[in-house]
């Protein structure tokens, strides 16, 4: 694992919604194999930044380079190729409700590969096991499983193509503390096992403490701090002081 290689680099990104300036020159980078977090008060544009990186939203100016591609001028085919190299876990899971868990996971394999049904089944079974679901859960529909299981199922779906980078939008929100800690452990385990990089938006202090290698704090339209937890907590900023001091003590 090359620790120093940049897998994602955001440079001077400016985002405007109408007249409302959301990001005013955001700079950060994520190294390969790292678990990286976007932190900040609600409404600071953490999720927006993530949505810009995964090409769901447009930014006004600046540059985002992901896996060696500048996404602001990426062509259709290259964009499609990029989409196969990442996995995304949405806050509300976004599992397809009309498909079973196993079908949800198998979808990309059926669309993008010509593997035999039995091979697809093996891969699905493997992903179901690796996220900590039971094999039987694969036959159930999303409406029939609990919130924590939905998260795991959505994670299995995000992992199915062996992505290089995984995007998680508030992965532990809506989970009970035990499931949330299990999920944290799962993310770290998957990073160690599969060597993927993880970028997540999170509010969960324990999760920040347990999982993140580095993080960026977004406040007042800019990055106010970037680095490890120790580095970030040393920086003087009203948000950081409130967030970490009141949360941890």
């Amino acid at each position: 694992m090359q620790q120093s290689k940049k897998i994602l680099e955001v440079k001077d990104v400016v985002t405007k919604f109408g007249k409302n300036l959301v990001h005013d020159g955001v700079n950060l980078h994520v190294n390969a194999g790292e678990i990286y977090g976007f932190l900040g008060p609600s409404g600071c544009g953490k999720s927006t930044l993530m949505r810009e990186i995964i090409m769901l939203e447009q930014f006004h100016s600046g540059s985002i380079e992901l896996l060696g591609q500048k996404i602001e001028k990426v062509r259709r085919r290259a964009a499609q190729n990029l989409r196969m190299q990442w996995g995304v876990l949405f806050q509300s899971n976004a599992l397809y409700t009309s498909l079973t868990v196993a079908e949800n996971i198998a979808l990309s394999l059926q669309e993008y590969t010509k593997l035999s049904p039995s091979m697809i089944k093996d891969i699905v079974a493997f992903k179901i096991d690796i996220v900590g679901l039971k094999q039987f859960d694969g036959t159930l529909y999303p409406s029939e499983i609990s919130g924590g299981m939905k998260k795991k199922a959505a994670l299995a779906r995000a992992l199915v193509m062996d992505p290089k980078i995984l995007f998680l939008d508030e992965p532990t929100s809506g989970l009970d503390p035990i499931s949330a800690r299990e999920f944290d452990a799962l993310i770290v385990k998957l990073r160690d096992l599969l060597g993927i990089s993880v970028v997540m938006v999170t509010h969960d202090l324990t999760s920040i403490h347990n999982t993140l290698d580095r993080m960026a704090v977004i406040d007042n339209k800019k990055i106010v701090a970037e680095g490890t937890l120790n580095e970030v907590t040393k920086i003087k900023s009203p948000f950081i002081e409130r967030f970490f001091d009141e949360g941890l003590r």
Partner: protein
Amino acid sequence: MLDKRKVALVVTHEKDAVHFKIEGEPAIQCLDVIEKQLKNAVKRLNTKSVVWDLSCVKKLDSALALLIVKEIERAKNSDIEVLVTGMQGDAQKMLHMAKDHAHFESEFAPKEQGLFYDVGADTLVRLKSLNAFFAFFGQMSMVFLHSLYRLKMFRWKETLFEVYESGIKALPIVMLTMFLVGIVVAYQSSTQLKIYGANIFIVDMLGISILRELAPMLAAIIIAGRSGSSYAAQIGVMKITEELDAMRTMGFDPYAFLVLPRMMALMLMMPILIFFADITGIIGGMLIAKVDLGLSPTLFVERFIQVVHVKHFWIGLFKGPFFAVLIATIGIYRGLQVKNDTQSIGFNTTKAVVESIFAVIICDAFFSIIFTNMGF
């Protein structure tokens, strides 16, 4: 980009072992090539020892690891010795992980149950759905009677809102459509009537057909498409987002708050819509009578008063509330049948429209027979 041509499973037979060597960058998108070649190679395998050579694989992904692990397990079961060589980086770890987490025996596809089972299960579902409809109808009637008993409880505001939403807003489209239907019917019949010189009878024909059948039917079909579908979708989404449950826990009976206002509003507005549809339909017919048959509006109205009995008008209006009940109950019932997935909204909305139009037509046929036999 990935190049499938560069990926291959090279099989070489050496002294006492078969060598499987993977060449190229076998990402998951090109794994099918390896899978097929492996399948062919295994068929002809007649050795007691297999060597996997992974020296060309820079990064072993989980899918390829699974494929190899499965092959190793299969080989072990038939007493073939397997050796993996040339592993780079995390390959060893990945193979171990694949072995630990693999479940080759898993089956996710639902079991085929056979025709007999399917017919039985389907019948049961339909019976249950009929039962649920009766339960719904019963509950709605209860709430209706209750609100008659205590008029203060009745939701006047919601009802008036629905009167505006599903009744008054539908007026323009109902009137326009009926105007066009009046023109079409008049035009088609005028060519026939001209042949016999029976021009004046267009008034009888239009009067009876529009007042008695066409206007009520058309208004009902438009409302079924417009309001039946919207009731089903609205209430369906409210069910998914747990708004209905929230109402129940706050002590607002969804039947009193959502169901009854919609039904009462439609019952009130349907005759009014039919009334306006009558007017525009006749005006459309009158226009064609003037243009095509040279029948002046004065003459048309005179003849109309003479020959078209007022009972036709009343019968048309009388059907309105019955159609309204059918459309509203089916639409709302379908909304309440929505389950916790997105597809069932589409499914139930479609059902709401199709079933309510069907029910309206059946109901109309019954009325037709009953009224004719009663001598109206």
